[in-house]
């Protein structure tokens, strides 16, 4: 060793070359080099290592580097350096020595395991400054048997340690020593392994957060690592008794621990989990594991083990459990069947619904396989699809029938999606099956209904088409009316033949244009089209007559009916427009109006003329009378005075002249009477006809007497008449009867009157609707030929010449006029030589 020291190149170290070394170092070195005890010196702040030959074996057995000479403490790789260094530091600081014990197992080669107890003493070495400059470690070993340390020899027996003085060179023990040495080296090797393992273990333990504990089962002494204390919630360095530790256990978990320990004593393995309550009352979970060591008698001697804080795990696990619980609750509450499978496709979870529905329990399902719930016809496809999904990872979607516990099969829609982890690989499949029996049934029903409906609709469509065709033809071919369809804005959408005829446009020219095209500019200014549409909108219909414009610009008079067309919701969707060309009608009607106007005008003129004529007639008659009268008077004067002076011819002519004058007088009188019948006021009075006839009788009494005439008056009515006119009428008629009486018989005049319904008289000239007073004046005179029945009422018409019967031909005209004034009708019936009957019909109210 000394040689080594001398030969080493120290310049590379922090100590420098030996000649710079302090005396204290040198002295210390000489001491250790000469000592038979293993010694190691750490010198200087770097703790450079020096050791003696005796120490070498220890180094070897420790597994440290062989030549650690000159290396710093740190770099030396000494076993348990992290334990040793603090001790060194302590010594350097305090100057007080420190002892450390170590127990190692060693084989002595004689198949006997020996425990070697090593004691290390760390003491300070003062340097020139008076302070510790290094630390000297001395090692003493002891066993039950003394250890005879020989020089370490290699395999070939060479001396490994040079410079070491042999302390106990006893020949007798030499072999034993060799053997012991061999054992020792083996032991050392084993020990080194052990130490290495120990070291490794420490590292592992430290890294794993495991707390290490050791329990002496006999003494109940316990040793704890610092981590152990941490786990219990205590700071490092606290000293706890076993009792104190136990107090932290959750009271409810004590039995668990007890049981675990009991089991450990029998099995040798300790494993339990329990709760811990810290001083701050927080709850933690711990997991204890351990191994029991038994003594020779088989009783447990001590236990070593680990303790782990599994609070987080437990909480996490609890959380997991709670979530799973929730999931299960949820899954079971749902009406759908929920199931999961592993990645192979094997179902491993069913919710409650599945059991309820199928009536099977979990074992039954698992035993026979869930496929048995599926309808046999669906199984093959089911398997195929499921397999496909499992293989491809595609979502599973399938409709199939499940067997209910009643035996009934119901359609289900099954869906499954894969659950993937962060990498995208499938962890499991989650599926649901929903009962769609009703929907399916419903869907089928619906399909049927739809089919039926479609058929119906098709039929309807056919009918509709036919109907529309018919209608279209109907509308289309109508020529006299323009039938159009307008949309809501008045755009022409439909056109028929009549429209083309009336308005002149072809369908292709007009469809799409607004119907206001047909209106005149004036109407457009007034907004007539819009007004009509609005009216139709509001009231449903708009009717109008007016001028419209054709395609060629010509006008026509149209009768237009615009009707609003509604849909089912009663909204107006368009208008139908029917136009009739009334131009001709209008023209006709215009003509009519014109004619009527003309007529009215003519009538007015006529009336005026009539009035003038009447006036003229009156006045002229009146005025004519004057000269006539003169003629007559003078004639009579001459006749009175000068007649004798006239010749016979003279007298004859004179007589004829007087005659003529007299006739003229009559004529004028009658004319006057006739004109009076028209010009006087029509004052109706309720009059008894009998009275009037009586008056006339009185007037005519002479003639009546003279002719032996008889007037027979029947039941007479009282009716509204113009008395004076009617008197004239009856006077004329009765007078006529007397005048035109037969020479063969006495005149007999029968006058009757009766009120009856017009229908009774069966005459074209009488209305069936009203009542008439029928007055008949019948005589037995000479009568007349019926063919003249109407002529006789005409003015100046006579049936006889003057020589037969006198008369002016005015009498019956006056009668007719009077009947006309009474809005009545007069008819004459006559038979030659039998008599005449005059029937007068006066309407009565």
């Amino acid at each position, binding site marked *: 060793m000394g040689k080594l020291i001398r030969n080493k190149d120290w310049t590379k170290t922090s100590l420098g070359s030996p000649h710079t070394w302090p005396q204290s170092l040198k002295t210390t070195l000489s001491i250790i080099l000469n000592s038979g005890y293993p010694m190691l010196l750490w010198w200087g702040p770097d703790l450079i290592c020096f050791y003696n030959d005796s120490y070498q074996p220890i180094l070897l057995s420790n597994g440290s580097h062989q030549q650690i000479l000159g290396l710093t403490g740190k770099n030396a790789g000494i076993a348990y350096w992290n334990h040793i260094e603090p001790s060194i530091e302590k010594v350097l600081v305090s100057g007080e020595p420190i002892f450390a014990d170590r127990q190692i197992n060693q084989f002595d080669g004689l198949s006997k395991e020996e425990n070697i107890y090593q004691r290390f003493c760390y003491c300070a070495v003062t340097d020139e400054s008076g302070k510790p400059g290094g630390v000297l470690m001395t090692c003493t070993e002891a066993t039950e048997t003394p250890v005879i340390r020989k020089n370490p020899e290699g395999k070939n027996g060479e001396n490994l340690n040079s410079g070491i003085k042999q302390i106990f060179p006893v020949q007798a023990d030499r072999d034993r020593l060799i053997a012991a040495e061999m054992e020792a080296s083996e032991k050392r090797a084993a020990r080194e392994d052990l130490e290495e393992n120990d070291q490794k273990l420490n590292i592992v333990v430290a890294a794993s957060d495991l707390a290490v504990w050791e329990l002496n089962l006999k003494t109940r002494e316990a040793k704890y690592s610092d981590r152990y204390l941490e786990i219990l919630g205590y700071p490092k360095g606290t000293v706890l008794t076993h009792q104190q530790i136990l107090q932290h256990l959750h009271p409810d978990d004590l039995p668990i621990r007890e049981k675990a320990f009991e089991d450990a004593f029998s099995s040798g393995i300790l494993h339990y989990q329990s709760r811990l309550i810290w001083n701050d009352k927080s709850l933690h979970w711990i997991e204890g594991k351990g191994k029991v060591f038994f003594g020779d008698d088989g009783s447990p001697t001590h236990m070593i083990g680990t303790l782990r804080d599994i609070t987080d795990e437990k909480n996490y696990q609890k959380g997991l459990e709670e979530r799973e619980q929730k999931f299960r609750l949820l899954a079971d509450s749902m009406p759908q069947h929920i199931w999961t499978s592993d990645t192979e496709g094997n179902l491993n979870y069913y919710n409650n619904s599945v059991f309820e529905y199928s009536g099977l329990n979990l074992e039954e399902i698992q035993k026979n396989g869930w496929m048995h719930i599926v309808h046999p016809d669906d199984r093959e496809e089911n398997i195929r699809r499921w397999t496909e999904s499992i293989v491809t990872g595609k979502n599973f979607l399938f409709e199939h029938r499940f067997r209910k516990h009643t035996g009934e099969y119901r359609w289900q829609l099954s869906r499954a999606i894969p659950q993937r982890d962060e990498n995208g690989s499938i962890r499991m499949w989650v599926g649901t099956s929903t009962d769609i029996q009703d929907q399916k049934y419903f869907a089928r029903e619906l399909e049927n209904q739809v089919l039926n409906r479609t058929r119906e609709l098709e039929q309807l469509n056919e009918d509709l088409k036919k109907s529309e065709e018919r209608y279209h033809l109907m509308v289309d071919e109508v020529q006299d009316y323009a039938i159009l369809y307008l949309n809501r804005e008045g755009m022409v959408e439909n056109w028929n033949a009549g429209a083309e005829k009336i308005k002149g446009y072809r369908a292709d020219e007009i469809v799409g244009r607004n119907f206001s095209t047909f209106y005149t500019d004036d109407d457009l200014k007034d907004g007539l089209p819009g007004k009509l549409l609005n009216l139709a909108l509001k009231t449903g219909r708009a009717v109008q007559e007016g001028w419209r414009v054709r395609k060629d610009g010509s006008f026509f008079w149209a009768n237009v009916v615009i009707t609003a067309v509604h849909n089912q919701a009663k909204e107006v969707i368009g208008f139908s427009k029917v136009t009739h060309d009334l131009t001709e009608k209008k023209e006709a009607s215009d003509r009519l109006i014109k004619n009527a106007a003309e007529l009215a005008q003519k009538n007015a003129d006529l009336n005026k003329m009539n009035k003038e004529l009447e006036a003229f007639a009156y006045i002229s008659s*009146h005025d004519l*009378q004057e000269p006539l009268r003169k003629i*007559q*008077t003078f004639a009579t004067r001459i006749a*009175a005075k000068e007649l004798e002076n006239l010749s016979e011819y003279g007298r004859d002519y004179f007589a004829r002249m007087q005659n003529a*004058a007299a006739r003229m007088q009559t004529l004028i009188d009658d004319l006057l009477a006739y004109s*009076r019948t028209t010009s006087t006021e029509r004052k109706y009075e309720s009059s008894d006809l009998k009275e009037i006839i009586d008056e006339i009788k009185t007037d005519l009494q002479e003639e009546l007497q003279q002719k032996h005439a008889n007037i027979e008056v029947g039941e007479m009515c009282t009716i509204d008449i113009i008395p004076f006119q009617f008197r004239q009428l009856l006077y004329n008629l009765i007078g006529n009867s007397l005048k035109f009486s037969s020479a063969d018989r006495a005149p007999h005049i029968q006058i009757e009157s009766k009120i009856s319904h017009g229908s009774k008289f069966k005459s074209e000239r009488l209305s069936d609707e009203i009542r008439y007073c029928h007055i008949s004046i019948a005589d037995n005179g000479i009568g007349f030929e019926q063919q003249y029945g109407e002529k006789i009422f005409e003015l100046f018409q006579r049936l006889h010449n003057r020589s037969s019967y006198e008369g002016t031909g005015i009498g019956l005209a006056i009668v007719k006029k009077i009947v006309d004034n009474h809005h009545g009708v007069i008819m004459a019936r006559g038979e030659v030589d039998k008599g005449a009957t005059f029937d007068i019909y006066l309407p009565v109210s």
Partner: protein
Amino acid sequence: MNKNPYNLLLADDDPDDCMFFREALDELPVRVHLTTVNDGVELMRCLNSSLELLPDLIFLDLNMPRKTGLECLLEIKENRLLNQLPIVIFSTSMDLEIVKLMYEKGAYCYIRKPGEFSQLKGAIHEALKMTTKKKRIKLEKEKFVIQV
């Protein structure tokens, strides 16, 4: 008849009629004094100017110029001094309405001028007879018109 001459007043515009009237009177067995006026205005003036010697009877033609017979009738009948005078309407026309009107307005009687001279004489005579005998009593309607 009476000794005093009967004063007649004829109001007529027609000269022929006046002549006829005079000739008729001449042939009648009466002693009358005839005054003739030719229109209504003259008639009224005549009447008003000879109030002390009013005529006993007036023959009044209706169609007279300037003032018609009707107007004169009305005027006379409204005149307190004149309304007692009997008036005979002497007219060509025989309009019943007019006849009625004359009756209502107080004419004494009505003569339609006849064509025959003899009838004329008869009518005038009748009128004279009536008025001298029954002056003050209004005739009945039926008797109003002198029938010839």
